[in-house]
Every structure is written in structure tokens, then in C-alpha cells.
């Protein structure tokens, strides 16, 4: 049954009917979601709600990447996991939840860390990438891989009661992470490193907003947060949007003559660049 040429089955039309009846969304946007794919890097505080909402919304293929196992102290913010999944690989636990929500989509797990060796080929397999990671070297690696593979990147971050959200590598003029931060902060040199706590609902809000951005990018509906940074002060209940620079022609990752390419990225030393290994930052 495909009388309208949109490629949706009767079951899909029933399942997504409340999105389809929305004038500004409709059957075409839903169809683009169902044909699209998203890679979520990190199945933690940000990745949990992002994965739930993207699976529910009908993204056709969802990749979940994490190298850690669920711990009890994760669950206060990583709500896709349960007590029964303590000790289970996070990507496996998250995939189980996504499949329980929506058996009609394809859910893929990647149980290895993202590394310079595997990043570009992983990112290439998906239409939209979500950075739901928790450390600076991984954030540079993800951004570089998205530049090299030509994929838009939804970047969220949360700590304490603060959150930040933007879209990198989008359209003609959207900057990448390196355009904004060409030099890495020195190791341990973030003001919050001594106080790495986080109110659980804060990554919840940012991760759900990341799902929204991915839906906008895949469906073509709405205005993605490219060249805009959303800054959330959630203790005060304040959201603030700021205007960002365009991409830099001199950027080593996305500029006109990038030094970091699909070919050279695997040799790039992120630990040396950021002065920290991918694991020791929150």
C-alpha cells in the first residue's frame, strides 16, 4: 500500500499518525525520517533520551556507540538503562530499549570506542551524527570525522546545571568544532573539572534537544541550530541563543585546504593535541 508515493507502510502510517497529521511535518517528512539514519556516539546522559526519541520518531536506522558498561551511579541520568542492565554493555542495553519501543526500525550497536582508526568509516555509514560523548579528545575526533565524511553533527554537552547545544558542519557556512576552538583547552583546564557532578535531568534536556535537531536535519523541517549556540542555565531556567562565526577557510579540518582528511585522520594524535586521554574527563 503506497498510494501516495511516500514509501510508508500502513503500519508506519498508523504508528506515526500524530506526526503525519501535523501540517508542518506530514507524510513526506515522516518518510525522510524512516529512510534516514543517525549515529549516536555515547549511550550515557545525552545519548539516553536522544536514542529513545529518535527510535520512537521512526528514524530508520539508529547506530549506538559506547564502550562502557552500565553502572548503578549512571542511572540517575542515563534513563534508557535499568537496574537489570547494570554490568551490561551500554550500547547493548540502549539498543534493547530502542527495539522494545520500535521493532520496525533497525538498531545497530558499536561496542568499541571511537578511535582515529575507525571514526571516518563509522561516521560515513550514517546521515546525521550526534555527539553525546563526555570528553574533549573525543569531541575533536568526532568533529574531524564529520568534516572528513561530510556529515552534519549535532553536538550537546551538559555539566552541573548547565547545558550547551549546536549543530556543526552544516550547509555552506556552518563551522566545525575546530573553527570555534582551534586550540584545545589544556588538560584539567576547564573550570568545572574539579566539580564533575551533574543534575540528572540536565543532560536529559540537552539530549532531547539533540534528538530534535536530528529530526530537523533528517526531515528538512524547521531551522537547525547551525551558527547558533543554545546556552542553557537550567538552575535559573534560562535559555539563551548566541550567534556564531561562519566556517573558517583556514580551518585544518573543514577549511579550503584541510590538513585533517579521511586519509590523514587515522594518524592524528588526539591525546597529544588535547593533552588528555579520551577517558579521563567528564
Amino acid at each position: 500500500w503506497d498510494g501516495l508515493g511516500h514509501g510508508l507502510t500502513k503500519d508506519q502510517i498508523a504508528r506515526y499518525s500524530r506526526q503525519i497529521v501535523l501540517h508542518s511535518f506530514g507524510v513526506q517528512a515522516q518518510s525522510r525520517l524512516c529512510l534516514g539514519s543517525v549515529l549516536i556516539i555515547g549511550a550515557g546522559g545525552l545519548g539516553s533520551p536522544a536514542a529513545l526519541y529518535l527510535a520512537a520518531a521512526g528514524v530508520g536506522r539508529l547506530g549506538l556507540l559506547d564502550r562502557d558498561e552500565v553502572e548503578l551511579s549512571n542511572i540517575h541520568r542515563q534513563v534508557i538503562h535499568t537496574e537489570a542492565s547494570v554490568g551490561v554493555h551500554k550500547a547493548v542495553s540502549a539498543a534493547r530499549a530502542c527495539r522494545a519501543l520500535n521493532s520496525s526500525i533497525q538498531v545497530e550497536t558499536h561496542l568499541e570506542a571511537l578511535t582515529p582508526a575507525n571514526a571516518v568509516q563509522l561516521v560515513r555509514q550514517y546521515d546525521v551524527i550526534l555527539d553525546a560523548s563526555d570528553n574533549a579528545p573525543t569531541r575533536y575526533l568526532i568533529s574531524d570525522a564529520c568534516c572528513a565524511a561530510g556529515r552534519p553533527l549535532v553536538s550537546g554537552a551538559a555539566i552541573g546545571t548547565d547545558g550547551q547545544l549546536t549543530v556543526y558542519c552544516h550547509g555552506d557556512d556552518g563551522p566545525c568544532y575546530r573553527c570555534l576552538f582551534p586550540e584545545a583547552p589544556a588538560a584539567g583546564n576547564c573550570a568545572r573539572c574539579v566539580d564533575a557532578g551533574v543534575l540528572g535531568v540536565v543532560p536529559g534536556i540537552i539530549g532531547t534537544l539533540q534528538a530534535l535537531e536530528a529530526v530537523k536535519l533528517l526531515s528538512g523541517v524547521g531551522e537547525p541550530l547551525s551558527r547558533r549556540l543554545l546556552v542553557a542555565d537550567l538552575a535559573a531556567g534560562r535559555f539563551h541563543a548566541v550567534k556564531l562565526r561562519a566556517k573558517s577557510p583556514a580551518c585544518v579540518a573543514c577549511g579550503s585546504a584541510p590538513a585533517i582528511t579521511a586519509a590523514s585522520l587515522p594518524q592524528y594524535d588526539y591525546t597529544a593535541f588535547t593533552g588528555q586521554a579520551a577517558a579521563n574527563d567528564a
Partner: protein
Amino acid sequence: MRLVLEFSGGMELLFGNQKTVEADIPVSKGQQLTLAAAMAWARDNLLTERPELFMKGSSVRPGVLVLLNDTDWELCGELEAEVAEGDRVTFISTLHGG
């Protein structure tokens, strides 16, 4: 010159946990105030700890975004941008957590 200085993303921890400061920065007659000068004033008058987390040399340390009236300072002239009475200057530390 009266400016509003804002600190976010953890930067406020370096400024006595103040997120917003109404600053009155002395300017010599006929002189312009630049973002560089406003930043140096904040360092000398407001910073309560660990200056290396705020500045590196005469600019901001890597990982900090500077905004003039909610716009990336890169679009306004960076250190040399001129600020006017009532402007808002914001320092945001980029977050890595998730």
C-alpha cells in the same frame, strides 16, 4: 563606561560565582574601550582565582567563547572590537560533559 559582563559554563566559578556583573570601567577621554581592555579589566578587578583558566597571554584561554551582545567576537573584530555604553560581554566556557 558601564558594561554588563556575563560568565557561563563554569566561568562564573572564577568570578566569585557571579553570573552577571554590572561593571563601570574607567576610560580616558577621547579613548575607545576594546574587548581586550575590558577583558584585562575583568581579570584585574573581578577574577577571584586561577587566572590561567580565564586568559592566556593577552587573549582568552582556549575553550572560552567571547560574545559581544550575544554575537561571537570573531564577527565583531575579536580583541580589537570596540565596546559601547551598555554593551554585554559574555565569556562562556565550552562544556565537554555528557
